[in-house]
């Protein structure tokens, strides 16, 4: 039954439709459009500001300092020549982080559109970087373009296999993809420790005392397109990520495959009755998700990391941030782009290097990023509440209007 007062059911409605994640998302989009994500972010920033205030900082100065630290002030005319150079470097850093976030965001978004929740972006990202570093540090003397391509393909395939395992388990045994992808994350982490740890099969040949891989050869590194290659300038991977956004959009909205994926995401039963193989789509979608995340791993590796250290495996959270990116971006191409940019900027702006400790302690500020990230996920997961509040507001204002037919079950 419907909850009285929460959402008035349309009159004489015969039976509620099956409600899937994708279904809820679509309802949400229609009800809120771009407004609700903005409310979500604003609210998260306000709460973050309160935290700053309580811990003795000035929220406005802090946010201003974080903003400057992201390099997003670079296009604005008020900064002078020296600041401008720093801003350029900061912006390069922001975009370097944005690049994998776009891809791990897509890895979650694509699954969502098929009614799946891919928590495994992190693992898929990691195995992508493992394969990329292995291929990149082998085959010395291969032509540069070919070597880069080979590394990227290897990373993509690794991610696709990692994701595909979860899809296959779901399709054949009905294993919940949330559980299996979490488990696969851990398998990926510990596989990394085994491979690159002291005495591991892929540990560095030159320095046997550090748990790290070999460096990739120069020929396998991605070209830097903005800034100084020695100072971690922006690599070409950003354009690959942007191309992936386009591929995502076309694949989902214009191809037979995407049509099947969306049908399965909205209503697997109806899709099945139309002769669509639901299981095949689960495998396919999870593989493509893994491919996106694996691509992210290989781009990071070939773009600026150049090696895998077990320490980094432990603290990396690009894959998990991708969940927040997809949720905030409403699993659309454009939304994912902006959400990735937001989180990329937050990560850079609150980093120890960029934030002046006299304004706000960077150690606290990076927690601020986590708080904002957590709030975004929480608020987006509680989408129904946002929609409800939104409708309540519009109903108060002008009684006979507002989006209806929001399905809520209890």
């Amino acid at each position, binding site marked *: *039954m419907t909850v*009285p007062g929460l959402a*008035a059911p*349309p*009159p*004489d409605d*015969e*039976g*509620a*439709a*099956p409600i899937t994640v*994708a*279904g809820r998302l*679509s*309802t949400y989009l229609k009800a809120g459009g771009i407004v609700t994500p903005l409310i979500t972010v604003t609210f998260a920033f306000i709460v973050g500001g309160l935290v700053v205030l309580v811990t003795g900082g000035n929220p406005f100065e802090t946010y201003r300092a974080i903003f400057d630290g992201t390099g997003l002030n670079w296009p604005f005319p008020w900064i002078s020549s020296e600041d401008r150079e720093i801003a350029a470097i900061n912006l390069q850093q922001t975009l370097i982080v944005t690049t994998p976030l776009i891809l791990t965001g897509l890895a979650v978004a694509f699954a969502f559109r098929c009614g799946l929740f891919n928590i495994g972006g992190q693992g898929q990202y990691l195995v992508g970087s493992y394969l990329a570093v292995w291929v990149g540090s082998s085959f010395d003397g291969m032509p540069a373009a070919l070597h880069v391509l080979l590394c990227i393909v290897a990373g993509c395939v690794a991610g696709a296999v990692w994701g595909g395992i979860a899809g296959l388990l779901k399709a054949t045994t009905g294993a919940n993809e949330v559980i299996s992808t979490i488990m696969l994350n851990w398998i990926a982490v510990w596989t990394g420790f085994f491979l690159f740890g002291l005495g591991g099969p892929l540990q560095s040949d030159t320095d046997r005392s550090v748990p790290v891989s070999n460096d990739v050869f120069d020929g396998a590194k991605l070209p830097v397109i903005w800034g100084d290659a020695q100072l971690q300038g922006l690599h070409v991977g950003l354009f690959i990520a942007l191309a992936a956004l386009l591929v995502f959009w*076309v694949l989902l909205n*214009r*191809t*037979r*495959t995407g*049509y099947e994926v*969306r*049908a399965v995401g*909205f*209503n697997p*039963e*109806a*899709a*099945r*009755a*139309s*002769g*669509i*193989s639901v299981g095949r789509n689960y495998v396919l979608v999870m593989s493509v998700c893994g491919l996106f995340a694996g691509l992210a791993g290989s781009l990071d590796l070939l773009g600026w990391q150049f090696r895998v250290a077990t320490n980094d495996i432990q603290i990396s959270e690009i894959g998990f941030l991708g969940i927040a990116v997809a949720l905030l971006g409403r699993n659309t191409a454009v939304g994912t782009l902006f959400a990735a940019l937001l989180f990329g900027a937050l990560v850079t702006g609150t980093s120890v290097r960029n934030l002046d400790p006299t304004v706000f302690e960077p150690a606290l500020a990076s927690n601020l990023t986590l708080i904002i990230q957590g709030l975004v996920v929480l608020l987006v997961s509680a989408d129904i509440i946002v929609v409800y509040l939104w409708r309540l507001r519009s109903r108060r204002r002008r*009684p*006979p*209007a*507002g*989006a*209806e*037919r929001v399905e809520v079950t209890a």
Partner: protein
Amino acid sequence: MPGDAPALELRGITKRFGPLVANDAVDFELRRGEIHALLGENGAGKSTLMNVLYGLHQPDEGEIRLGGEVVRIDSARRAIGLGIGMVHQHFMLVPVMTVAENLVLGTEPHRGPLLDFKTAAARARELAERFGLAINPEAKVEDLGVGAQQRVEILRALFRGAKVLVLDEPTAVLTAQESQDLFRVLRTLAAEGTSVVFISHKLQEVLDVSDRVTVLRRGKKVDTVATADSTERSLARLMVGRDVLLRVEKPEHAPGETVLEVRDLHVADDRGLPAVRGLSLDVRAGEIVGLAGVDANGQSELVEAITCLRQCESGTVRVDGRDVTGHGALAAIEAGVGHIAEDRHRRGLVLQFDLAENLSLLEYRHPAMSRWGLLSPRLMAARARKLLRDYDVRGGESDTPASSLSGGNQQKVVIARELSANPKVLVAAQPTRGLDVGAIEFVHRRLVEERDAGRAILLVSLELDEIRSLSDRALVIYEGEIAAELSPSASEEEFGVFMTGGGRGQVAA
């Protein structure tokens, strides 16, 4: 009983849902001890009006008077307190509890801190006897049939002191015989002074049971008429706003080759219990074979087996000579099985898809619809526009989400999609379920047209009238077996006997 203050009066009730006006200044008057039918198509606002009365919705305008006094009903609890009882379409009973326990739920009688079921059971028995409701208060609800569960719901309303009893489409789940039993109970209640509101969109039963009829159309009250002065035709006209063809005109048929051949089929249900047990049937080109039966006698499983949505234990399904048994839904579709699913929201449509996308669910595979795997939205929309025109779908364009159409128009979309794939056999499972008179007329006419064009049609329906008026041959299914083959002109009673498991041994399949 003129002269008395009416038991209940609704005056100028207006209820809006966003831009939709579900009730527009509706007046409704219920006399003491009368059975008053509330008649209207789906979406006419019947349920909304009664939900306002029961405190589930607050009206935007208008007032409610009980026994002449204005009351405000802001919750179901308040409605119950005021003596208003409601029997919903979907029963709200706890299956594992006894009848008596269900009756007192929420108002548990107690002696000190201890529950006192004895008193409750005694009172229940007394009420049941007074109103001729055959119910054992100690029986568990899960062991009761649908009709008996409905009587428990009625009894519960009376137990809570209902003077006004609202029944929302009570016969939708009942057999003809159970409906008659229900009508008898309602008449007893009315004679004892209880006022009954009977919501329905079925004309015949409204004529059977009610004293007066109020007709709603698109949220507005059309008229209140005395049942004695009404006919099926006059009510249908009030309801739809135009003359409606109530009986299908059906020319003689000349069936051709056997298209669908089901042999000795065994199918298990979701719990793994046998649902279809050694069933065989044939459907030939150019005939409608009706499958009559009470709900849950294996119809759903049979349909799912034929459309290959469910695995069979044994037996074969052949379409046009091709064995499709267990080959998957795509194989069935490619062999030429069209399927009007019994639950269009669950299986027939992707509600969030727009109409062009829904209409392409079978056709998108066709090479002409895509190039190098890329679909052409332009082609899909153009095709959709043509189908929407051909099948007279109203209330939406090719880019309208399916969820915003009315039930009748949604069903037209399903039918348009299935027929446009030009299937050899069409399996129509309860194709008019939940539809209003106008939409039912459309579906029936369309099915007969398809038959005349040489399609084989298997019509599965719980509506005996539908089976009898549309079929060329009628089969009765009972507990997963064909209990009889009858002429569609056989009487309701004859059908009823086989539908309820009687007359076994005279089986002809």
